[in-house]
């Protein structure tokens, strides 16, 4: 089996003196869709935020393409960060701008600052690439619509297109379908599955619907109180393991 694109070992993180992550381990390989499961407050978002560099882990190793982020010089660190894109539950697009302009924004890291002050100045090549990204998520025909006019499911697919325009090969998604109706949720999950299986990206998504996770993901990781409780192919996850994650008698981490 090929080596993982993203590899996380022994991730620790405390807020104040309250430990939130107590040794999270996981790998994501190219061509694989991974699901994170876990109760509220189990540390799923914090894990993703540490990988993205939004939060600083206290200890642990995060390696992208085999390189430990902690030991990379600045330039290569930027390059490694460019390879990781994040999809948010609240989508975080600019509703007043068109889908195309929002997708172009994924490429800002390679647009000179002077040309990024307004979408009017975005280079042609970037706009062309953004259009292709929208095509890959099935929304080429809505490129010039304002994002605010699109449905929630369409907006989330635009956000995926923005990640593609970033030329990321690792896509992390924090509850990408929690705000979507069942049909739109299936569509977005099918898209993430397509990105993994067909376009060979490494995709990891936090999901609060175990059935959706078991059906769509290749592997599931259960987080319990900030540590990896299980890491199994979806076919091997059983009801007892899920019960242990979500059991009502769990200590609520608040």
């Amino acid at each position, binding site marked *: 089996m090929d080596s993982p694109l993203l590899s996380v070992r022994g991730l620790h993180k405390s807020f104040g003196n309250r430990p939130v992550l107590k040794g999270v381990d996981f790998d994501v390989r190219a061509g694989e869709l991974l699901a994170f499961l876990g109760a509220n407050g189990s540390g799923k978002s914090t894990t993703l935020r540490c990988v*993205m*560099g*939004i939060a600083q882990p206290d200890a642990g190793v995060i390696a992208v393409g085999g390189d430990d982020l902690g030991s990379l010089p600045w330039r290569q660190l*930027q390059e490694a*960060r*460019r390879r*990781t*894109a*994040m999809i*948010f539950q*609240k*989508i*975080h*697009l*600019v509703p*007043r*701008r068109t889908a195309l302009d929002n997708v172009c*924004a*994924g490429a*800002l*890291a390679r*647009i000179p*600052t002077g040309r*990024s*002050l*307004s*979408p009017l100045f975005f280079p042609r090549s970037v706009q062309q690439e953004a259009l292709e990204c929208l095509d890959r998520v099935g929304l080429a025909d809505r490129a010039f619509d304002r994002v605010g006019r699109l449905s929630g499911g369409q907006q989330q697919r635009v*956000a995926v297109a*923005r*990640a593609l325009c*970033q030329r990321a090969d690792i896509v992390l998604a924090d509850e990408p379908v929690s705000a979507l109706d069942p049909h739109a949720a299936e569509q977005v999950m099918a898209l993430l599955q397509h990105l993994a299986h067909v376009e060979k990206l490494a995709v990891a998504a936090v999901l609060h619907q175990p059935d959706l996770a078991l059906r769509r993901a290749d592997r599931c990781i259960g987080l319990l109180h900030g540590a990896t409780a299980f890491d199994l192919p979806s076919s091997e996850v059983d009801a007892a393991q899920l019960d242990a994650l979500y059991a009502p008698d769990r200590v609520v981490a608040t």
Partner: protein
Amino acid sequence: MAVVAVVVLHALAIQGTGFEPGLLVDGWKGMAAFVADAFPPDLSWDKTIRPGLEATLVTLWIGLLGTTFSVPFALLLAVLASRSTAPHRLVYQGARAVLSFFRAVPDIVFALIFVTAVGLGPFAGVLALICHNTGVMGKLWAESMEESDAGPQEALRTAGANRIQQVANATLPMVVPQFVGLLLYRFDVNVRSSLVLGLVGAGGIGLLINQSIKSFRFDSMLTHIIIVLVLIIVVDQFSAWVRRKLAA
């Protein structure tokens, strides 16, 4: 306890301002004479209405330039003085201090200063409004950026965009409606301020009103006040219209 404090404060304030309703009762005759003098308003075209309309236009221009020419300064300072976009904590503190200064000095004080520099006339009024309005609008804009959803900005940061790119492509486009709304509100306020600036020599209809009072021509004063009323209603309607367009 709070009630006692409020009562005491009001007692002090009444004493401090020489607040004396009795004087108003005694002085009603003077007011009545004043109003009687003002009626009927002087409607002579050449002596009152035409100069009034011309001066009103000047007042409008002062308010307009005072608002629009402060936009670049207010925008720059707002970005530096908003927690979500400031490049550094010290810059943030500095920009806020600058904004506080321009906001704290009343436009009429700026007008008096500029009159000594560039002489009597509308130009001094424009400069005064630019200064004061930069302070007020910069503060309002900075606050609306701090209150706006930070999500899109964070999304671009994780995509590797630098600070300027984040501001230009997430923060500012998110607050365009609020910015325009505040701009219109300030235009409205500035047109009315420029009336007052006229009283201290910064041109416009305020100057004419001041002159007619000084020469006891209360009938032309009334005409000018009616013209001002029309101006303010028109500006108000215009702002409302633009805001409606924006919301649609």
